[in-house]
């Protein structure tokens, strides 16, 4: 059975026409500035392996967004992935990855508009990575990096990141005059408070898997000497 296209969090992929010229332009500029920093930081961390690593992980996020689980009544849940990416590879690399995912979704698959691309990348890629990573670090730091705190931190980071993305989207719509604060904000936050639980559980499940099988990957920048070729996968 071939499934339909990835069901993305549609209400976070703003289409063209819904943001005013100023809001769209301002967020393009903010996004470009953030990405400039993110690209520099990422290149420093990963050096030669930046392009293949970021590219494969961007494909991973794209694929992960496509995977779903049945919720009820024929609907299914899936993830956005910004906070998870930040937890797994750090906020800067996560921004680069998410920018490429959201950009290709807009350009090749028409999920999200082109003039509003800056806003969409900011909401789903930059804000989720920064806020998610901050929440994760705060919780794990509080718990000295013990396993339960890593999982709770991941859940909290993922939930908050979805709420922040929903808030930003609502705010941009309201400031652009395409929605009423009084209606869009409670509606979006209400729906995403539930969606965020799914995001949190999926993200925590993913981190639990990584923690069990490759704990070396969590919070540590992979060392891409020949050392990482160790392990069964190259035999």
């Amino acid at each position, binding site marked *: 059975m071939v499934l339909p296209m990835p069901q993305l969090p549609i209400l976070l992929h703003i289409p063209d026409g819904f943001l005013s010229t100023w809001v769209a332009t301002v967020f393009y500029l903010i996004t470009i500035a953030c990405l400039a920093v993110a690209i520099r930081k990422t290149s420093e961390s990963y050096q030669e392996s930046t392009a293949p690593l970021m590219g494969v992980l961007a494909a991973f996020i794209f694929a992960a967004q496509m995977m779903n689980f049945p919720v*009820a009544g024929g609907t299914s849940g899936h993830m956005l992935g910004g906070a998870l990416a930040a937890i797994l590879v750090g906020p800067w690399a996560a921004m680069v990855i998410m920018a490429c995912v959201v950009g290709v979704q807009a*350009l090749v698959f028409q999920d999200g508009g082109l003039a509003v691309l800056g806003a969409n990348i900011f909401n789903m890629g930059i804000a989720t990575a920064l806020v998610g990573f901050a929440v994760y670090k705060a919780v794990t730091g509080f718990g000295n990096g013990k396993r339960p705190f890593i999982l709770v931190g991941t859940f909290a980071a993922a939930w908050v990141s979805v709420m922040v993305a929903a808030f930003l989207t609502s705010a941009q719509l309201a400031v652009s005059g395409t929605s009423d604060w009084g209606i869009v904000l409670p509606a979006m936050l209400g729906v995403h408070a539930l969606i965020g639980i799914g995001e949190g559980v999926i993200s925590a499940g993913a981190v639990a898997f990584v923690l069990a099988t490759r704990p070396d990957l969590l919070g540590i920048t992979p060392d891409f000497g020949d050392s990482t070729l160790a392990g069964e996968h190259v035999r």
Partner: protein
Amino acid sequence: MSYFALGERYQHGQGLLYRVDPRVKIVIAVAFAFAITVVHAGHWQAFAGFGAFVALAVGTSRLPLWLVLRRSLIALPFAAAAFPLIFTKPGDTIFTVPLLGWAASHEGLVHVGSIMLKSWLAVLLAVVLTSCTRPLDLIRGLERLRLPRVLAGTIFFMYRYLHVIGEEGHRLMRARDARSASGPDGGKSGGSVLWRARVLGSMVGSLFVRSLERSERIYAAMQSRGYDGTVRFSNERRLARRDWGVLLVAVLALGGLIIYARF
């Protein structure tokens, strides 16, 4: 048969727009999406002008009209975000929803209609341009538009491995679904929603580990063939006279439309 091929919009065809450099098409699509944002609500003549621009694009692409229209519906669900304005925007009441007592205002209808029109026209043009450009050419177009190398390189690898990793994700779901059965007595099955979400989390985690390990093998394969950390591209192409012509016409038309809409 690749999973993602279904989501790609490219449609074989012969129109003039097929032969235009992807860079030009990307620039036009982005410029159009921006230009249409400046139109005031209710300025129907300006919308007609933008509509004519889209019609011209559809004509020169020679894409089937029904295909373009069908694909343009992708942004429709988002209309829900603007819809309440019909009732909340102050103005002359046109009708009242029975039972609920919501009053629809003239200004609200004009405003929401304009938003929908902007969105629809921008999506239409984007659909036209991506339907007559191979996804790979779009990506090459981005690279030739001087996107930072890290981003261009990431997007190239992402596009290549979308198919490989997407298939892996698809197979994981298939293996899970093959084991999602009801019990012998036909009793309640499926576990809790949270358990199912956690299982999906495990699958995502396993896909991550596999992706990371794959990136290590790819890196080894690249090194074996001389990769030294600098991303190089072999395809450098100058814009042809036709490309400049199309770009010029589009820029003049959009510029004219902006001026007409605002001044």
